[in-house]
């Protein structure tokens, strides 16, 4: 297979944009943002938690429910990527092609919709049981 550098141009462009965005955001906040050096602002940032002390501290159990719900949607996303990638795309002037044989396309489509429905059921259940009420 021939090596053509031009195929990699989009990736180089992407890298350039990523690095440029990160650098420019840092520089811009440094130059433009007001700088008030209070003791709290000088502390290392640890997502709002006190960074000094015992590692074993009580943690609100409410976060557990949020974590579980996050996992539900995380796993859902994991299944949706291959599902989306399976579908036909235009491979050029000829026929659209797909990794999935035509016989299974409607079956797989509906199966994933049923899966999505079951996740929605879990979401509504959590909602109705007051998981989001943050009591």
């Amino acid at each position, binding site marked *: 297979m021939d090596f053509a550098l031009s195929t990699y141009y989009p990736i180089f462009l992407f890298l350039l944009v990523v690095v440029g965005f990160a650098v420019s955001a840092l520089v811009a906040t440094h130059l433009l943002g007001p700088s008030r050096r209070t003791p709290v602002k000088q502390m290392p940032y640890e997502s709002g938690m006190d960074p000094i002390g015992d590692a074993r501290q009580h943690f609100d159990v409410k976060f557990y429910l949020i974590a579980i719900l996050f996992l539900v949607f995380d796993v859902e996303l994991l299944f949706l990527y291959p599902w989306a990638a399976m579908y036909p795309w235009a491979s050029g002037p000829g026929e659209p092609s797909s990794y999935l044989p035509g016989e*299974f396309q409607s*079956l797989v489509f509906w199966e994933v919709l049923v899966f999505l429905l079951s996740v929605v*059921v879990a979401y*509504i*259940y959590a909602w*109705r*049981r007051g998981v989001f009420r943050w009591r």
Partner: protein
Amino acid sequence: MNPNLVTALTGYLPYLVPEMLLGAAACVLFLGGTWRANRHLWGGVALVSLAMAALALSFNPLPHYESASVADASRYASPVMLDRLALLLRGVSLAGGLLLVLLCWDSMPENRAAEYHACLLLMVAGMGLCAAANELVTLFLALELTSIPTYLILYLGKSSTPNDGLDAAGQEAAMKYFLLSIFSSALTLFGFSYLYGMAGTTNLPGLADAFRRASDLSAATEPTVPSPLMGMGMVALVMVVAGLGFRLTAVPFHFYAPDVYQGTTTANAAVLAFVPKVAGFAALVRVLGFVLPNLSHEVFTATLSRPILREQLPILLWIVAAVTMTLGNLLGLLQDNLRRLLAYSSVAHAGYMLIGLAAAPRLLDAFDAPVDGVDAVFFYLVTYGAMTLGAFGVLQYLSSSGQKAETVDDLAGLSKTRPGLALIMVLFLFSLIGIPFTAGFMGKFLLFAGALDVPPSQETTFWPPDQRTLFVGLALLAALNAAIGGWYYLRIAAVMYLRDPSPLAAAAEGKRSWPTLAAVGLCGALTLGIGINPDPLKRAVQSAVPRLTDMVSVSAVEH
């Protein structure tokens, strides 16, 4: 794409409508329970959905393949195997689900009833899929579908309001079961990964073929040295047996059972005594390859005649069976708590059932044997379900109607306060012992007959000893165990009939739980019915498990 393959990969879906219905009904229950808290409404919905699933199963029981090539493609590519064994066990799990829904009707708090019944329906679907699994992946998912709802019901069964937690024993039970169950799932999965790594397929008939090819190869090149595949295969199978042994409560994986049964409610203990056993035995029989339907005689014997399944595995199962039933019965003698006692009883019964699995590969030689081991296991599974659920049902009925039923002494004088209930409890106890004219007798008879029919080894060596001697010894040990078990079952009967009721028990006259009573009545009818006329069930299990003798006659007709 090959049309046979398409049929194999999609054609099974209409046959899984019962399980889909159960899953949909579980979703309705989970959501509906957040709007209405009413045990009678949601219990009724669960019963109706079980009936609809049974109807769907009866409309579409067995697939009909147009040609041998379609059947072959289904065997090697379909994730489920819709043979007669799957049909039998799916029917058994639906019937067991019906009994469990009735039995658990009043056991949980009102606001948890919908979720509880939804979990029961998911377990029933899981048991059915376990019996129909044709793939290691399907099998694992089905096993998880039975065990994850079990963790939930251990939490749902006891607390009465959302903020009121479990007591310490209930928490211990739920946590212990959860941690040990995921540990056993991991063991099973580890064994499965070895099987997949060695054979390159997760398809069960494909695995059997891979083992056969490997042993043929090693026999051709170096007859005395077993191939590395077979050596690793033994490691994998030991891990699978260990992981599934947890679900069967086989010793040494039984130790959680007494604590969990004691810590949780009676109804939850009934679920734990039935559901994991059915799923575990179905999975064990599928993985160990005792049931590979539509196989020709040649392939069938070739699969099992190789060293791994023929020599080592029966010895492993022999040891596990002997230790399980002996330890279960001996420790049962020491118990005063009724649920703990029934937990050890369920351990002992798992040991009896393992006799059938241990004897099954050996019985392939015995063409005139009346049973072939595996059918005896499933016969016993049905009778065990009826009598154990019945015994738990009596205890659940007592506790839901306000009488304490925790220790053996709590049942003192039950024959005077509730004569009918005491009589039916005695029926279940007699059946658990295995007294004639109860279901337990016929079940034990078939299992022991299997062990006694094992033919002698062709060549006699010092080690391993003659297989006939080994299995006759196992049958004798089992008979001795049945006698030991008789002591603690009869002790309950003696306390019920010979002691005077405590004033507390006589005073307790709470509300009657009719659904639980109905479950007890159904279990009693089954226990007595199978005991008096075992032939319908015997025919059902024998037609479900393809016997070698039948296959030989079929192939003789074909040629």
